[in-house]
């Protein structure tokens, strides 16, 4: 399904009813709204990992952000955190989704923080998996080098320094496999509708300057932070910077966890389940 939100049509998919029979009545369940990682990716990976783990507890809503997946592409000039966060707010208003549990991963977690800082009353709770307050390339480059050797460090360095098609291609070849510690089948890569232009554009512009540390202090929703200690893309030190500013955060780290937490660490989905249920 797609729905008009502001100037774009956004694709969303749903699993698990909001109302379930409980005895002779209908019981209302929480809504978990998943904000996918990116930029450049879409909701696809969560259909295999986190979503099915939540569907017995909650209505799971998958949303493709503008410029991503099956949603309208819009214009690159609108590809920024405030636009994406405002779209999510508009999406919730359009469909009457009330106080969802916002689950954001990586860049999706940055959108969740921007949204929760601008409109603290909107989310009931937050889950931030592998979040960052700001992108500090040297931190990521060091972890890529530690995990994948000098070639990985160099590919990451070139990508952050000159984001373009050539450096992204090399980054995907050398660094992408390091984002998880267990092998992903080809279907995981093939199912996503990639938009590498969004990755390059965002990295060239907002990615260089974004800093959520101050606004993280505006977030009032209870926040669960899940963080892989070996995450090269969103390194632990950057997540801790964000956690320091959050008012009401529970941090869980995974000693060998990387960025693909929900693929590699079944315990991460268990944490989300508890958070949704509590």
């Amino acid at each position, binding site marked *: *399904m*797609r*729905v*008009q939100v502001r100037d774009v*049509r956004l694709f969303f*998919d*749903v*699993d*698990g*009813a*909001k*109302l*379930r*029979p409980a005895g002779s009545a*209908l019981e*209302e369940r929480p809504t978990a709204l998943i904000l996918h990682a990116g930029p450049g990716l879409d909701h*696809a990976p969560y*259909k*295999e990992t986190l979503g099915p783990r939540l569907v017995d507890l909650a*209505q799971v809503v*998958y949303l493709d952000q503008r410029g991503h997946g099956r949603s309208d592409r819009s214009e690159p000039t609108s590809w920024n955190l405030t636009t994406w966060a405002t779209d999510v707010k508009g999406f919730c208003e*359009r*469909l*009457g*989704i009330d106080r969802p549990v916002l689950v954001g991963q990586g860049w999706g977690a940055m959108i969740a923080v921007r949204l929760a800082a601008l409109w603290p009353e909107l989310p009931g709770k937050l889950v931030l998996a592998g979040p960052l307050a700001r992108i500090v390339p040297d931190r990521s480059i060091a972890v890529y080098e530690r995990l994948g050797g000098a070639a990985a460090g160099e590919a990451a360095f070139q990508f952050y320094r000159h984001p373009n098609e050539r450096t992204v291609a090399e980054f995907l070849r050398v660094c992408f496999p390091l984002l998880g510690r267990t092998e992903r089948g*080809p*279907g995981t890569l*093939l*199912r996503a509708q990639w938009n590498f232009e969004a990755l390059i554009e965002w990295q060239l512009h907002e990615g260089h300057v974004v800093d959520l540390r101050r606004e993280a202090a505006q977030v009032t929703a209870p926040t669960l932070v899940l963080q892989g200690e070996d995450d090269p893309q969103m390194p632990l030190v950057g997540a801790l910077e964000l956690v320091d500013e959050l008012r009401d955060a529970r941090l869980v780290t995974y000693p060998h966890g990387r960025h693909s937490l929900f693929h590699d660490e079944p315990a991460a989905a268990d944490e989300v389940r508890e958070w949704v249920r509590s």
Partner: protein
Amino acid sequence: MGAVVRILAGDVELSFDVDGAQLVPTDLGWAERPTVVLLEPTALYRDGLGPALARVAQVVYLDDRVDVDDLVGFLDALEIERPVLVGASVAVVFASRHPGRAAKVVLVGREEAGGIGCPVLVVSGADALRAATDDVVAFVLEPEREPEP
């Protein structure tokens, strides 16, 4: 029952609920499942037919009473293209007035529904519908025949 999820379809606000994804992962890609719209009174379906259909389709519970224009607005607002409609006369009138827009109709409680331009399964009433869950699931999954020239 208050509004759960709602959408403005034309000038009216309609409450709906969804169970079962439209796109489900296959080995290397996606399977797009049919969308089944269960028309009011949806409480009939919550504990039997709805969950059974959600295993093979995307199920949309349309909680409010609608006329044909409302239904068009609702389907347009969510870009639901060729749903299977389950309900009473409004489903038949919709299919007749908008040829090709409904993939199939499950008609609850009326025995004559020929010539509306799409396959129809007639179930005599709510009790019969409960007993016919397997038949409805099979009807939804039946491949659509090419229209005759």
